């Protein structure tokens, strides 16, 4: 007697599964055999089948087209907002220490040198409102590879789309854009950038704006120096990195007392917006400050951006020896 009771209890899960169309063939067979001999269980089976039919009737009806349209629209709005806010980041090792790269849908948003004292991963990202940082995917790997290529001297152009949303003002944005246009191996001054954006008196503001460059390396603020050629500041307090980046690009530096200077007498020069580049001794160039000049580390860097050798001083015939 108790044997049968145990059997009924044991078979219950399979019985229910069988009634609800969820049983494996073996289990269904065992249930079939059991209920042939067991009337109470047969009745149970019927009860569960009836419940299953009722459950089947509770299956949710498809969402109406109009309801679905509303859902779609609300989600589209939510997604658009999320896309604007969402920033994917990764932290990489580099010869310059740990670097954080963050991208939005629009482009690279932040490049940050991490490290120093304290938490090596503490980033500005945590403090920026209106952005949702998410650890990001493989797409940032390409940027990392480019960056390594640049730091190794192999890559001369980081053609990354830029998202300048972290610019603090319209002025800041203009400064960053003008700086972004500086080619590889070229150097100019804060004063010249100020002139370029139509605000020749805003030299200190330009320097300040570049101090807060959210995209170092990519927006090459390392290529902007004092009008005298003195390197001035970088990324708050990392002048060593500025020197290193300039070195990678072939810009020669001199040390004068404690300050580093661009070796302008060993660099080609482009006066103003001339379409030619000259030797440093050409015409009035020696008397001009970098407020009026762009310097180039090599003929190649000048010619890559479409400049022609000056027809007077002929840098093509008398290149500067290195």
């Amino acid at each position, binding site marked *: 007697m108790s044997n049968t009771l145990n059997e009924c209890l044991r078979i219950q899960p399979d019985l229910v599964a069988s009634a609800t169309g969820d049983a494996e063939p073996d289990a269904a067979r065992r249930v079939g055999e059991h209920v042939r001999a067991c009337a109470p269980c047969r009745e149970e089976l019927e*009860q569960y089948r009836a419940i299953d039919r009722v459950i089947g009737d*509770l299956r949710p009806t*498809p969402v109406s087209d109009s*309801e679905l349209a509303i859902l779609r629209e609300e989600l589209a709005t939510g997604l658009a907002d999320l896309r604007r806010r969402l920033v994917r980041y990764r932290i990489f090792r580099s010869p310059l220490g740990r670097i954080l790269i963050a991208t939005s849908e629009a482009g690279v948003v932040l490049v940050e040198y991490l490290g120093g004292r304290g938490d090596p991963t503490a980033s500005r990202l945590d403090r920026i409102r209106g952005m949702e940082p998410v650890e990001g995917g493989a797409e940032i790997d390409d940027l990392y590879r480019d960056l390594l290529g640049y730091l190794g001297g192999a890559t001369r152009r980081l053609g990354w789309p830029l998202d300048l949303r972290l610019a603090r003002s319209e002025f800041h944005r203009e400064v960053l854009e003008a700086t972004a246009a500086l080619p590889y191996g070229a150097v100019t001054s804060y004063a010249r950038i100020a002139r370029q954006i139509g605000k020749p008196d805003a030299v200190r503001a330009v320097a300040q704006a570049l101090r807060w460059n959210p995209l170092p390396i990519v927006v090459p603020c390392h290529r902007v120096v004092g009008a005298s050629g003195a390197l001035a500041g970088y990324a708050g307090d990392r002048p060593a990195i500025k020197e290193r980046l300039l070195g990678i690009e072939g810009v020669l530096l001199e040390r004068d007392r404690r300050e580093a200077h661009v070796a302008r007498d060993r660099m080609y020069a482009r006066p103003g917006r001339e379409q030619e580049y000259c030797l440093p001794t050409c015409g009035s160039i020696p008397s001009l400050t970098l407020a009026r000049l762009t310097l180039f580390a090599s003929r190649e860097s000048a010619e890559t951006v479409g400049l022609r050798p000056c027809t007077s001083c002929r840098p093509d015939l008398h290149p500067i020896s290195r």
Partner: protein
Amino acid sequence: MGRDPFEAVVTAHQGEIYRYLRRATVGVAEDLSQETFLRAYRAYPSLPADANVRAWLFAIATNLARNHSRGERRRRAAYTAFRSSQREDGSEGPEGAARFIEARTAVEAVVDRLPVKQRLALILRKFHDLPYEEVGRSLDCSPEAARAHVFQAFRKIRHSLEDRELPGVEVG
């Protein structure tokens, strides 16, 4: 790449996830379904190309439903009572239909009051035909445990309807 753009994911699954949440929760299906897809969007680039996207979405939605269900039982009971009162009582129709509707209402009430894991397991299995592996994944349990949840759910329904005559059952 072998993976659809996110828009295609939304188009393919938004309706069903909403239906699921409408049954799995009370009054928040719209919000939770939106949140499901926002979470999915964030995580989508990390999803392996061969992943079962539908099952993954159900897991996200289930997670949200479970988090939401705390403190929900009383709201749920009230809502079910309201929902039942809205239904046509069918007393004018044929007796069989009326009895079926009555049974349906009773079963619905029991389902709405099931413990959250049993309720969600039942819904995922019976209404959305998710295999037990995926039900388990959604509920953070093994497929066997998921099966057990469904079994327990049916048993609870059965015992709640003890004295009621279910339509279509032959007695004796």
